[in-house]
C-alpha cells in the first residue's frame, strides 16, 4: 500500500521547549489515521506540521523531513499555498465564513482563479454532496452559513476542504463540539471520504478512534509510543503505556 506521508526525524520546538521528539512514521494513503494521547502531548502540533500551519507561530522551529509524494514539504522551494491546497484542514470548532453556504464552498476555488459560474456551481454541488450535506441545504445555498446547525457547519467546512481537491484532509477533534447524532454523521462521512482522500484525525475519544480509523498512533509527551493498525492497538498493544491509556488506567 502507498504512503501519503513519510516523516523522518521530526523535531519541533516552541522556543526552548521541545514539543515533538524525533518522530519517524509513515501514513498510509486512503486510510484514516487516528492520533490519540493525553492533552498537551503534541497531537495538534504534529497535525499542523503536515500543512505547515506552524509556520505562522512565532518561535516555532522544525527539524527533520516530511515527505509528500517524494517531496519534502519543508524544502524552501515548496509553495506553501499549493501545499495547503493538497493538505486541507478541518478544525475543532466549525468556522464557516460569514457568507452564504455557496460562497463558503466557492471561496477556495475562486481564490485559485476559477471564475466561470457554471464550473463553480458544479464544484460547490459536488463538494456538498461528498460532504453529505447537499440534501439538507440544496434549496438554501444562498442563505447565510451561520444559520446551519453545528453538525451542518462542520460538514460545510469539510465541503470547503473538498472543494480544493486535496490529497489529504487533516481533522483536529472535528466532533468535540457536536452532539452524538451530528458526530455519527461525521464518522459515516469519514468512512466514505477515505475512498478518495487520506484522512488524519486527532480525537480524544478512544471509541471514535477505534470506530473510524485504520491506523492509530499513540502520542505521549511529544513522542510516538506506538503506531500500528487500529485493530492491533485496541486488541493487543505492545507497549504497557498504550494499554494503560486505551483502557483508561493512565496516570
Amino acid at each position, binding site marked *: 500500500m502507498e504512503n501519503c506521508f513519510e516523516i523522518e526525524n521530526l523535531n519541533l520546538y516552541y522556543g526552548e521547549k521541545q514539543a515533538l521528539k524525533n518522530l519517524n512514521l509513515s501514513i498510509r494513503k486512503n486510510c484514516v489515521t487516528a492520533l490519540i494521547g493525553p492533552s498537551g502531548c503534541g497531537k495538534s502540533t504534529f497535525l499542523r506540521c503536515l500543512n505547515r500551519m506552524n509556520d505562522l507561530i512565532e518561535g516555532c522551529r522544525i527539524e527533520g523531513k516530511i515527505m509528500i509524494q517524494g517531496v519534502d514539504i519543508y524544502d524552501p522551494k515548496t509553495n506553501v499555498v499549493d501545499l495547503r491546497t493538497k493538505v486541507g484542514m478541518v478544525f475543532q470548532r466549525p468556522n464557516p465564513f460569514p457568507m452564504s453556504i455557496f460562497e463558503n464552498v466557492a471561496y477556495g476555488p475562486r481564490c485559485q482563479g476559477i471564475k466561470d459560474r457554471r464550473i463553480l456551481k458544479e464544484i460547490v454541488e459536488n463538494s456538498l454532496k461528498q460532504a453529505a450535506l447537499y440534501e439538507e441545504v440544496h434549496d438554501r445555498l444562498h442563505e447565510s452559513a451561520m444559520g446551519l446547525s453545528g453538525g451542518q457547519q462542520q460538514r460545510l467546512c469539510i465541503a470547503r476542504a473538498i472543494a480544493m481537491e486535496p490529497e489529504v484532509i487533516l481533522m483536529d477533534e472535528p466532533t468535540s463540539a457536536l452532539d452524538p447524532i451530528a458526530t455519527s454523521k461525521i464518522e459515516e462521512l469519514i468512512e466514505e471520504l477515505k475512498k478518495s482522500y487520506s484522512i488524519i484525525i486527532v480525537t480524544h475519544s478512544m*471509541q471514535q478512534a*477505534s470506530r473510524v480509523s485504520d491506523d492509530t498512533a499513540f502520542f505521549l509527551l511529544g513522542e510516538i509510543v506506538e503506531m500500528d493498525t487500529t485493530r492491533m492497538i*485496541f*486488541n*493487543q*498493544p505492545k507497549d504497557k503505556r498504550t*494499554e494503560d491509556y*486505551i*483502557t483508561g*488506567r493512565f496516570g
Partner: protein
Amino acid sequence: MVKLDETLSLFQDLIQEMARKVRSMHCLAMQIMESGDKEKALQLIQLDEFVNRYEEEINDRAQDVLALLSPVATDLRIVIAGIKTASDLERIADYAKNIARYVIKNGPVAPCIRPIAQQIGESFLAMFDHTIEAYQARDVKKAFQIPEEDEVINRLLEEVHAILKEALKNQKIDDSIIPTVGLLRNLERAGDHTKNICEHLIYQEKGQHIDFD
C-alpha cells in the same frame, strides 16, 4: 478507571463462586457413586438448576460491562473468556448431574471399581482446583501445565477397562456393570471442559488461541 476494575473484579468473583458450586456438586457426585444414596442424588440434580442460573447471571453482567464500560484489549478478553468459562462450568456441572442420574437408575458403582472410580474423581477435582487457582491468579504458566493432569484421568480410565475385562472373564460379575464405563466417561468429559477453561485463560491473558486436544 476504578469503575471498570471494580466491575471486572466482581465479574470474576461471580465466576469463582460458580466454580465453587460446581466443585461441590462433583464432591457430592463422588459420595453418591459410592453410597448409592438416591436422596442425595436428587438433591444434586436440583443443584444443577442453581448453577444454570449462575451462568445466566454471568452473561447478564458481561452484557452490562460491554454496553456500559466499553472494555478493550485484556479487559475485553476478560469478559469474553468469562462468558466461555461460565459455559464450560455449566457443562461440567451437567456431568455431575449425569452421575446422579446414573446412580438413581443403576445404584452405586460395582465394588471392584470403587477404589479406582474414587481415584478418577479425586484426580478430576485436583485438576479442577488447579484450574480455578490459575484463573484466580491469572497464571498462564500454570494453565499450560494443567492438561498434563488430564492424561492421568485418561490412563485411569484405561485401567478401568482392563479391570472390567478381567472381572468379566473370571465371571466374577455379570455384564450389567458395563454402563459403569459410561458413568466414568462423565468425569473424562468434565476434564476436557476443564482444559477448555485453561485455554480461555491463556486467550484472556495473551490473546492467543490454544487448542489442547
